[in-house]
């Protein structure tokens, strides 16, 4: 099976140098792109059915096509890589930047060429100190080799790239908040419209894509859309996907697999099944802000459509596994405390609603819950539903809670009636 994103990574844990990357076919995609017109590059990416890997699965080529092009378009445009990766339970972009930073850089250069951008930024989570060092080394190599800078590879195309390390806040991953952070401001989200494709960084047309999304682009250019589509087992999109698992499974980690493998294959084969003595109770399929699935859902495909049909979201594709010895209320409490702390405070339902939600859950977990708390919690999930808050943070925070109230209701009731949590902490 082909694993374009990971098959050339080195097992000793060091990053591919520029020479090693080139020897594995690196910068071939860029070479091809520069012989095409920007529109041809954009159309190829559209045909490949590449969909954003940052959580929402938006078609990448279509996103690019909203950028103003031609003579009258603004001269300054930006390409930004979203490497914030603060969604609890997510650890795929770290692997990409630590082990093969040139793949990200090449993908961003090609994307910049497609939309006519001359400046690009990698926005990286502060905690990724090793990743930051390796990106910096790779950027220096790429400048020296003439892949970055003025008139790259004699094409007449200029592109600069800079690394920006964040100073920490989950909301920085939201693309418009990220742009405010890049401008040196508080990272509150912005109104949409205008969308960043038209008015983004410093008011100029800007594309924000996830790190993994960009890493797919060089391979699409090098090997074509048909090849890319053939990698996938999903109707809705092309390529492989970095899936992963954490929690009490035997082989937690990241695995590159065809888009659209079943949840069962992911859990039982690649994650190795549950550790001895633990049973599977629930799964957050794509990070902290996705609805729980249960063992009854194991036969669905892990793609954008089927996970949505099952009432959740594929999100980042890295699953968090709840076992039978961990308290579901304790897990929800942990999640809601995270979201409450990371609320940016801009709008009232989220700023006030999330701490209240966490407080109610703390009460239930500590044996002080009241029967009416369950209804109040369901009320909160409606109060912070999509459309009621300024950005998607609060609705995302409600996803694990609303599904826990559905699937683990007896646990909520038992905590409240017995005034006690029966799960011992381990």
């Amino acid at each position: 099976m082909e694993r374009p994103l990971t098959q050339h990574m080195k097992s000793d844990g060091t990053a591919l140098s520029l020479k090693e990357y080139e020897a594995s076919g690196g910068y071939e995609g860029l070479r091809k792109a520069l012989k095409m017109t920007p529109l041809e590059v954009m159309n190829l990416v559209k045909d490949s059915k590449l969909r954003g890997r940052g959580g929402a699965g938006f078609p990448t080529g279509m996103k690019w096509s909203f950028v103003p092009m031609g003579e009258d378009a603004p001269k300054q445009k930006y390409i930004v890589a979203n490497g914030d990766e603060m969604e609890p339970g997510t650890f795929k972009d770290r692997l990409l930047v630590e082990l093969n930073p040139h793949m990200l850089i090449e993908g961003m250069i090609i994307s910049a060429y497609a939309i006519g951008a001359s400046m690009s930024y990698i926005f990286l989570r502060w905690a990724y100190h090793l990743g930051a060092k390796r990106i910096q080394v790779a950027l220096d190599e790429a400048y020296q080799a003439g892949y970055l800078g003025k008139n790259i590879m004699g094409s007449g195309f200029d592109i600069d790239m800079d690394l920006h390390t964040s100073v920490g806040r989950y909301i920085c991953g939201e693309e418009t908040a990220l742009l405010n952070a890049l401008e040196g401001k508080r990272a509150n989200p912005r109104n949409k419209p205008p969308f960043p494709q038209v008015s983004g960084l410093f008011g100029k047309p800007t594309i924000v894509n996830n790190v993994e999304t960009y890493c797919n682009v060089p391979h699409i250019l090098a090997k074509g859309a048909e090849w890319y589509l053939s990698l996938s087992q999903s109707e809705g999109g092309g390529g492989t996907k970095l899936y992963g698992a954490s929690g009490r499974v035997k082989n937690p980690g990241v695995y590159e697999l065809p888009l659209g493998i079943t949840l069962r294959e992911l859990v039982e084969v690649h994650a190795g099944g549950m550790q001895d003595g633990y049973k599977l109770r629930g799964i957050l399929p794509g990070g902290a802000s996705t609805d729980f699935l249960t063992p009854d859902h194991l036969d669905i495909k892990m793609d954008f459509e089927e996970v949505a049909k099952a009432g959740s979201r594929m999100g980042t594709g890295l699953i968090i596994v709840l076992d039978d010895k961990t308290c579901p209320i304790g897990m929800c409490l942990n999640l809601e405390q995270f979201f409450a702390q990371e609320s940016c405070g801009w709008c009232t339902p989220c700023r006030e609603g999330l701490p209240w939600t966490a407080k109610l859950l703390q009460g239930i977990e500590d044996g002080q819950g009241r029967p009416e708390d369950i209804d109040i919690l369901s009320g909160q999930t409606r109060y912070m539903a999509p459309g009621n808050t300024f950005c998607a943070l609060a609705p995302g925070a409600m996803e694990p809670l609303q599904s826990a109230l559905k699937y683990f209701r007896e646990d909520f009731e038992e905590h409240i009636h017995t005034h006690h949590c029966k799960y011992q902490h381990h």
Partner: protein
Amino acid sequence: MAKEQVISDEARKEIEGLFHHLPHKQAACIDALKVVQKYNRWVSDEALQELAPILEMSAHQIDSVATFYNIIFRKPVGRHVVFLCNSVSCYIMGYEEIYKALKDKLKIDFGGTTPDDRFTFLPIPCLGTCDHAPAMLVGEDLYRDLKPEQLDEILAKYE
């Protein structure tokens, strides 16, 4: 007597070096705070006052940025910051045990600094290494698959 500067000439030069490529100086605000912190470990009120004319912003504007972010420190911190991940995968994999052990060993809780200024102890959201939970950072060093019995050896590395 002239007041002593808290932002050194060296740090000031580094901040001024951030401006090229940027449409205005305010855009360097976060990076400038990072530079101050690199030299001073934290951002004091005096540092905000001195930054204001350099960035052409008011000290209050800079403070509103500084207080927004998790790792810009507006209070003094010790020589080494211990960031223990308290997010969901670490919670499932035994964060509680590590938290208790660290609290006992350091004799401080989250938000505290040891009296000898050696460690500050803080919680931190997911460190992106959930397949090796529980995890923590000490300064820039990442420790994964933590067991309470490893903590003495880890902490001993930091003066």
